[in-house]
């Protein structure tokens, strides 16, 4: 009885902590997000659309989407492969490797940008040999892609590896005894089991790539109509005092992120429901 009443009372008096939490979160999270939309539509819908119709803005959004898509695709393959090797094979240095591949989460993105410049830049460790033959990976779309691949690498891995770890060895062995070769076992047995992980990993990668700033700003050179991603465009417009232009693109980015996030949320909810 005592526990029951205690339970009830704590539930009713929850109003206080909840309102306190809202008071904290409102200026911290909710109001800033709202501000984007408020500013974006200040010039009316026509103004909003006009700013988006500028070639620079168009390019930045398209470029960002293209990079995010390519990053998801490449890291989808690379991350799955890495996860497969790390989960199924036992070799020397496996532990060290699994730490290293997760490292990008912990490194500041600006540092990632710097390190890429120091490797591939015109005077970089490898770049100095490429520069004379006219190959310049940095300050080019390819450099941006490299930076994004680096920064988002762990997300795919993190989504796929737990699924692989849980898959019993006998699952694959069953396929072998039935007659499937390595590729067929992977294609028909392993890969379908990874579908969920692949989907959520790709969405996470996509979302992160879309918003990436620190590393991109270092390696891209922020060249408009060439390497300028949407976040860089927003930053550049803000610097130049074009608040409305910056906000329009920001609103688009924010909306995209929301949509991605909700899809992901719904998906994981459905999966956890199915599992229980």
């Amino acid at each position, binding site marked *: 009885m005592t526990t029951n009443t205690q339970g009830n009372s704590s539930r009713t008096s929850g109003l206080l902590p909840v309102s306190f939490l809202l008071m904290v979160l409102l200026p911290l999270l909710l109001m800033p997000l709202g501000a984007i939309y408020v500013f974006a539509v200040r010039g009316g819908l026509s103004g909003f659309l006009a700013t988006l119709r500028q070639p620079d803005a168009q390019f930045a959004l398209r470029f960002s989407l293209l990079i995010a898509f390519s990053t998801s695709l490449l890291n989808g393959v690379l991350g799955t492969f890495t996860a497969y090797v790390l989960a199924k094979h036992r070799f020397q240095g496996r532990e060290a490797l699994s730490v290293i591949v997760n490292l990008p989460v912990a490194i500041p993105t600006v540092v990632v940008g710097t390190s890429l410049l120091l490797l591939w830049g015109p005077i970089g460790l490898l770049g100095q040999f490429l520069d004379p033959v006219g190959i310049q990976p940095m300050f080019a779309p390819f450099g941006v892609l490299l930076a994004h691949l680096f920064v988002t690498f762990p997300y795919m891995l993190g989504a796929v590896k737990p699924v692989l770890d849980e898959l019993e060895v006998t699952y694959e*062995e069953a396929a072998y*005894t039935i*007659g499937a070769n390595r590729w067929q076992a992977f294609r028909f047995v392993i890969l379908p089991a990874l579908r969920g992980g692949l989907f959520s990993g790709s969405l996470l990668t996509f979302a992160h790539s879309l918003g990436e700033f620190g590393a991109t700003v270092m390696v891209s050179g922020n060249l408009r109509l060439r390497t300028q991603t949407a976040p860089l465009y927003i930053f550049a417009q803000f610097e130049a005092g074009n608040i409305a232009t910056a906000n329009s693109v920001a609103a688009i980015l924010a909306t995209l992120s929301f949509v991605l996030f909700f899809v992901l949320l719904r998906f994981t909810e459905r999966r956890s429901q199915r599992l229980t």
Partner: protein
Amino acid sequence: MSIVITKLTKRFGKNLVVNNLSAEVNDGELFVLLGGSGSGKSTILRIIAGLTQPNTGTIVLNGKDVTALPPQARGTGFVFQNYSIFRHMTAAENIQFGLRIRRIPGAQRRQRSEELLDLVGLAGLGARFPDQLSGGQQQRVALARALAYQPAVLLLDEPFGALDVKIRAQLRRTLKDIQRRLKVTTILVTHDQEEAFELADQIGVIERGSLIETGSPEDLYHRPRTEFVANFIGGSNVLTAQTHGDRMRIGSADLPLPQGSRRNGSQMPVRILFRPETVLLQAEPFAVDSGVIVLGQGRITERVFAGSQQRIRLELEGLQGDRPLVGERHYGQRAAQIEAVRPSELHPQFHFVKGQKLWVGLTQYHILEASGFKILICSEEGRGDEAIAEFGFRLAETAGGRSTILTVVDSAASESSTREKLERLRGLWLERLGDLELRIRQGTPIEEILLEVQESHYDLVILGRHARSHETMGLGKTVRHLLEQLRMPVLIVQKPRSTLARILICSAVGEPGKADVHIGGRLASLTGALATVLHVGHPGETPEQRRRAEQHLHAALSTLEAMGVTSESKIREEPALEHILREVEEGEYDLVVIGAPAPRATRRLRWHDLAEQIVKGAHRPVLVVPMVE
């Protein structure tokens, strides 16, 4: 012959999992590999399927050597304990997977999967996903999936292990039916003897990677060759009978030895097996002309109700032998333990009550093959070790056991001369021993001896201690290392004795050892030697400690007596070494048995001191017995 396994060996690191195993399975036969956990049975199955590579040996399936082939090319159907049904495929898709890989047209595939669903009793459930099926149903899908592409052999790895009893029984019947109907050669691995009995055409009992015995369920139950199988399968009573001439004596009964089990030794112990359900129990003495072999009058020590039957345990005085219950020997009991079972009845005619005295008799029994003593004699090259080898042979001869002589050489060059020398020695002894093997290994002695002990199961290892190491203080590095690592009885010989008439069993250090009494007793019973149990107590012993020591001595004597050994006991006080050495001299013992306590660092030091001192001071063969458990 559908499956022929030849000399298969598999090691995982230092562990020998499959040990030189050979087996054959006939066409259409259901062969059950029965063994405890860790016996290596699953590894064997995986090797047959190609999922694990053996170190040596070959696998031939339907006349084709598949040892080097990958699992895909072997065409085996494998059923795993955890089902391993593909979760994203429906039952039908799972079954069709093998056909899809083999590019069978869709219509044909669907027809085949319908047939198989029908066969395993899942008609109409083909569209279900695994998470919509019960465990038993999933395993049925797994079975259908393994059968879909008409595999050369069907391999099942504890297929019912994860299911509950009812489902298990149903599935067993299904499997048996299907196997009979399709006549597919099958190997099933299990630890469950009931399952083995119900399913098998042939059972292979496997222990520590070796196939101990193969036979039909009935043969293995009623006529096992070895004591291991007798105890592993079913409840068993094993007693020791003494032979004299072509007859043997057990209890008050005197029976003719069956043909084929006669041996030349005048007084030999033989082990006879009888199953609990064949034991006759009655309140009145058996009639003289009833043909019943009367074991004597026993007292009920326990009656257990076990559903369909009741188990009755009795103690029989005056019978030599012991009843090895599974995993446990009754230590310190003079009386033989007999187990009988009777069907449970709603209105029993006769009530079995604890303490009741009943006459115990037999009409049928089976004689087990002499297990003998398996002795490994380690002979070192070029040190004049023949005397020690001969001591080992004599021991093997008196104990009626088999022996192997092992020499470790350091290079291939010295192998032939060593072999020559050993062959000559063997020639001299072969007639008297019958069973004498030669083994020459190349490498470092410690490692090779450890490997040899792992590969063949010995009861005893004989190591020589050389005059040379007299100069150094200790036992010698090899002997010391082996003592620490072998975990089995090691007989250290420096001055061989020509007879084995008196054995001294010392329980001076550590806890009173049961293992040393057992092994000393076994040797004494095999050789007919007289055993003396010596306890060395502290001068400042409390009465309680004193009492415990006496109790232990009493138990040891009872155990020895039950093993048919004439024995006596002695109590001395510290210092242990001095008393043991004096006793050894005065008593003219031929063998000293000392127990080695569990290897704990502090104890080990002290024990090694004592062992070394005894070996050095006693000039007798010393048997060091590690504590088991």
